[in-house]
């Protein structure tokens, strides 16, 4: 009877101890997983932060390039520069110093109807040649 009670005590103690051990193990695993998860998140955070920093640097660099370009554009569009390039390199001169030559085109003094057919044809060719000459002159 005494031996039986001793065995039952042992039987009773063993499952409780196992349960405690299991609980500790579970908690340890849980804490370990949480720690690892936290560390993982922290690593991810650092990685993202670094990427953001790089992005910010890129933005800053582009902003600097933009400022430089704006400065260049303002210099290039400066009226003084435009004027000097136009006059020195492209030959712009003031209106007053431009001479316009106009050539008067002679008009036929006789009426076409009063002329014979052959002469009329000849005058037509003359008029046509004048037109061509005018157009050629216009292209100059």
């Amino acid at each position, binding site marked *: 009877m005494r031996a039986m009670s001793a065995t039952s005590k042992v039987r009773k103690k063993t499952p409780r101890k196992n349960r405690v051990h299991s609980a500790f193990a579970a908690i340890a695993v849980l804490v370990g997983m949480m720690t690892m998860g936290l560390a993982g998140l922290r690593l991810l955070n650092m990685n993202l*932060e670094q990427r*953001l*920093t790089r992005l*910010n*640097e890129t933005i800053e660099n582009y902003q*600097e390039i933009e*400022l*430089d370009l*704006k*400065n260049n554009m*303002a*210099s290039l*569009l*400066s*009226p*003084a520069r435009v*004027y000097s390039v136009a006059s020195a390199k492209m030959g712009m001169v*003031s*209106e*007053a110093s431009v001479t316009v030559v106009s050539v008067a085109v002679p008009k036929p003094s006789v009426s076409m109807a009063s002329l014979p057919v052959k002469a009329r044809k000849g005058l037509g060719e003359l008029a046509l040649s004048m037109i061509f000459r005018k157009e050629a002159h216009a292209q100059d």
Partner: protein
Amino acid sequence: MFRVFKDVWTWLFLVIVILAARLAVIQLWPDPRTVSQASSQYWTQVSISTSRGVIRDNRGAALAMSVPATSLFIDPQYWDPANAPELKAVLKNLVSASDLAKFSKPMKGRFVWVARKISPDLAARLLSKKLDGLYALKERKRVYPQGPLLAQVLGFCDIDDEGLAGLEQSWQDILYSPPQAKILARDASGQGIDLMSLQRAPKTMKPGELVLTIDPILQMVVEKRLKEATDEYKPKWAAAVCLDPRDGAVLASASWPTFDPNKRHTLKNPLVRLNNVIGRVYEPGSTLKPVIMSIAKEQGLVRENEYFHCGGRIKVADGVVTDIKAHGGQHLADLVVNSCNVGMAQIGIRFRPRFSYDNLKQWGFSSLSGIELPGEEEGLVSTPEQWRGVVPANIAIGQGIGMTPLQLITALSAVINGGRCVRPYIVKEAKDGEGKIVYRGGEFVKNVVISKKTSDWVRTVMRRVVTEGTGKAANSPKVSVGGKTGTAQVAEHGKYVKGRFVASFVGFWPVENPDHIWLVVLGEPSQKGHLGGAIAAPAFRAMLEDYLVLAQ
């Protein structure tokens, strides 16, 4: 119980517990000295200059802006003095001989400037050599993309971007953005790494912006032609200013001698920093006659059909007023058309001192015009007690009274715009960092000094000055111009000096409804003439004709 202390694991456990506790104490409640030392070792705070606001002309182009620049400094703790010649080899003139000597020896402290605000490319060339202890900071540099254009009006800044002159100084509150402090981590070599730019970057104040009334094409034309006139006539100083007489907007303002705010060495001469348009007081001479004539006509001191005689000189009390020649019989309008001193002196002596003094004050003389620029002079008008003897006659011919070119052109604007004395303005609008408009320049009528009828009459008289009088050289077939010439004597120590003159011409167009009034002043020309009609009027015409072509 004590059996556990015989176990080595127990002792190991206790040691670990003590160490952990101590670690916790050190980490959680560190010694302030340790914190300070660690901070200085691992973190560094640098001051970063931020952009100043942009100044734009009335077409939106930037006249002043900030661009990226790099500054180099040495941390003596990491610096090897043997590397000093490398600095000189790349930076050349930016490192002086004394600087080179300094960098060649061991230095104290943790921060020594090498070069401020150099081009990023040049800095990159030096940094690529990876010299220990040499570091770079990103900064902003103030630049003026259009070079010397509008230099005295824009002003300039010091190396730390604080405005020192011109609009840069007077609009400092709008344009300036305080430097930003940046915290960098240091790596093993002491190089700063920007890890804090995300969450902990302080919120910076954005700078504002100024938009001016300046027409860039007109400004360019005026400066170019003024420079040509100064090259030809070699004056001591010169100025040109253009206004819209209807509302007082300053369309162009040029002063000579001038400087390039991008080149600091051009600032050495103090004369170049003086804005002659607002800071130079001079006796205007005959260009004041339209104002005097307007006052006399408005006060009823003269009649339109009145007849004067000019014999070439007239004695007035204790003095004599002379003319370039005897004009003979002159109608009232002819006094202005032919710039007759003798006739104008006769009008001057009719002035009642107290009333006329107050009247001149109403025209804006001897008081600040109110333009948004620093360094403006008030000018000088004799007090009524001093209006004795020849003084009123002198004032009537534009002598014995001091004013700035801006005051004169403002008064002449009133002559031609119907009598409204408007306050000149050069800032069209000012915006704060958020883009909100905090100031808007515009028409502000200070006084109505003459009637429209008087104004119309004087305007037609001034048209005759250009068509048949002393200002023929300013006439242009392209547009109807009115104007007035001026050749004033220069006083020194209370006496007019022989051979020293100020030549000027004021012109406006179109005569029927003027929207431009320009004043050209050449102070003490030393060659090829001295008369306003001979040297200032042609400069005006050149400006006008250039502008009419280029503005299209």
